[in-house]
């Protein structure tokens, strides 16, 4: 198995409260712990979980436990469930080497003018060393439920080869947390995400 490209490796999952940040960070975190890594996950908790901006900081290390906060400008990978949230995170935590994978589906902010996806996507691209812009929600809807967008994005993350994890390590995490009857559907969505790597 490959090793981390950097220690600690700093991954941020960005989204809107209710989109499933906690589920994603846990799936990835457990996969790393199983391989003997130290993992720290910092989540946005509290009232922001209700449709607010949320983020999960994952810090992965062979050496030691890190704090649940990635310092400003020090993210290595950003996994975005919503493009505006991805941009928000890039602005604070991005740097010249950051790799971005993001859903292109906008989730509108209540009572606010919303920018066009084109403009947001362009700004995201300008702040990312490498970008995968994926319409995960539309792909998920094709699979029967927009909720699969998360597994599609995880599929793209793993498929991109930037983490020392593979399909099996995610499947093991899923077996522990999701009911058996949902496992197949989730893994189908994961496969879809892996396929999309080459189209990003």
């Amino acid at each position, binding site marked *: 198995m490959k090793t981390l490209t950097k220690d600690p490796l700093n991954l941020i999952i960005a989204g*809107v409260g*209710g989109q499933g940040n906690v589920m994603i*960070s*846990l799936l990835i*975190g*457990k996969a790393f*712990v199983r391989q003997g890594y*130290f*993992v*720290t*996950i*910092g*989540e946005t*908790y*509290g*009232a*922001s979980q*209700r*449709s*607010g*901006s949320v983020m999960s900081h994952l810090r992965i290390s062979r050496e030691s*436990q*890190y*704090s*649940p*906060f*990635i*310092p*400003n*400008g*020090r993210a290595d990978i950003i996994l975005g469930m919503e493009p*505006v949230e991805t*941009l*928000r995170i*890039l*602005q*604070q935590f*991005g*740097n*010249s080497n950051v790799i971005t994978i993001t859903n292109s*589906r906008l*989730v*509108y*902010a*209540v*009572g*606010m*003018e*919303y*920018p066009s996806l084109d*403009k*947001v996507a362009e*700004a995201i691209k*300008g*702040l990312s060393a490498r970008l995968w812009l994926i319409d995960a*929600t539309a792909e998920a809807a094709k699979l029967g439920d*927009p909720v699969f967008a998360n597994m599609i994005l995880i599929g793209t993350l793993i498929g991109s080869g930037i983490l020392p994890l593979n399909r099996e390590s995610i499947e093991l995490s899923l077996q*522990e*947390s999701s009911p058996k009857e949902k496992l197949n559907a989730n893994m189908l969505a994961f496969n879809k995400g892996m396929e999309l790597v080459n189209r990003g």
Partner: protein
Amino acid sequence: MAGIGIDAPGTTELFIGNEAIARGALEAGIGFAAAYPGTPSTEIMESLASVAKKMNFYAEWSVNEKVALESAAGASFAGIRAIAAMKQNGVSVASDFLANIVMSGIGAGLVLVCCDDPSAISSSNEQDTRNIAKWLDIPLLEPGTFQEAKDMTKWAFDLAEELDTICMIRSVTRIAHARGNVKLGELPRKEHKAHFDNICPVAPTLTKFIPYPSAWLHQQLHVKLDKAREVFESSPFNWYTGPEEAELLIITCGSCWLYSLEAVKTLNLESKVGILKLGTIWPLPQKLIEKHLSKSSKILVVEEIDPFLEGSIKEMITDLPPASPHPTFYGKHSGHINAYGELNPNMVIEATARIMDITYESRPAEYSKKAAEIPFTYMPMRIMTFCPGCPHRATFWAIKNALRLDGRDGFVTGDIGCYSMAIGPAGFFQERTMYCMGAGAGVANGLGKLAQFGFNQPVLAVCGDSTFFHATIPALINGVYNHSNFTLVILDNSATAMTGFQPHPGTGITAMGETTRVVDIEDLCHSLGVQVDVCDPFDLENATATLLKALAENGGPRVVIMRRECELVRARREKKPPYKIHVDPDKCLGEACGCNRLCTSAFSCPGLIWDKDAGKAKIDEVICAGCGICADICPQGAIVKEAV
């Protein structure tokens, strides 16, 4: 992972701090656990309750934190190890009992876990409970990692028994709610046997559990604290890393320890800056600190929230002989570290760089410039709001309309829960005061007695169902007794929703999942002679009319119960929305309507969006919960609901 009860010593789990604390309690062999939910402490009891039946101990959601601590103490008095868990506000609620139990001893190990919320991310204040430990002479531990959260909790029970006094553990949000590696220990297998010891060896007419004579017991407590200090001097939860002689010594505790480590590493100062990490916070291990103070002439104290260590260490230094080191202190008093709010690695990096006179750049300046140039409009802020389908949105819509129709400048006093969001646009800015649990009704009691001073504005106090049981009942009784003029609106969504749907006395189910007698809110109010009306907030017309009627009445308090299950609980059970909603584009007149985009600019459910290109309202089908309330507010009837 199989939860906190997994019987696999030596394996590593990815636990949040709260689960780690719960696991520590299991490894200590607790027989009793009590708590009231409150962020960031809730998961301690949630995880304990989930394994209690299987592991043969007792766990409960208590009606409030004072009762939780008293219940746990009761178990301890009968020889059962017990834990009580709460957030910082809860410790204030429990503090009356706490200030008394320190005067007596305990039976079996008794531990109070308090989770502080720096920056008040999910709270109404950011009080620092370490001060309570100092105030009341309670031995206090604070974990710096998830592993320590488990190990310290386990040890706290031994410590409490050794010292014969209640011990406290303080955690903060970034331990309680962050997740990290925890290596599991053994789970004890012993039978619990409870018996209350009725005899006091020194005074046969007393038991050990009567704090009398108080002054003598206060002196005894100081002896216990001295013993705690001795134990803490060699505790493995305190340690130093760094050079023998340091240019700067950082003294830190809790989550700030990891921030300090990161700061030193990021700035490449490992050979110049040392870190003394403390896990035993009160009483301070004086000799240990004295020994390390001589390592450097500059001390930076990094801690969240108040300058507790900083003040206590300075206090300690004044007692040292004149020849002892008197280093320069940096921290909250010097302004290098904020004396409010949560800290993070950035702040500690900046403070350290400033003291060491070095420059730090988090990323290339060119990138920062590009990031700063992104227009603000590309990243609209997301305001906090009620979930799609939340009954509270409908309730506050009805309250807003009833108060306007009443026309006497009436207003809402409130407190803590999901409905606190009514201080903002989510609830149409209706909640005009917001303090602690039960304070809406408490404050209304005073306002309702001001008629003699010309006050004639109607007062509506709001509280949730769980808050009603927690702290509102005495305020309602006070209103009845003193004939205070206000309307209490109970937002009954059948759950402690804000913290994750924990059951309470009105739900008929216990923390361990057993069915129990329902404490009926109407019956309880009726027994006080209070008039009670029950409405479904989704029936906006009836809800508004009922509120108007209550507002028009005069005299003692009356109660309106707005009853509708929390949408998240309903959706979880029914797994499908009640209605499919769409906007009929032929009926929606857009800007030409004259409604001023009532649905998206005023009602503002996240499921409603404004289609700029079409100039009409639209439903976001991914977000919409299908409650159908927006269909009732559209003046054109353009929002259509079809039963699913």
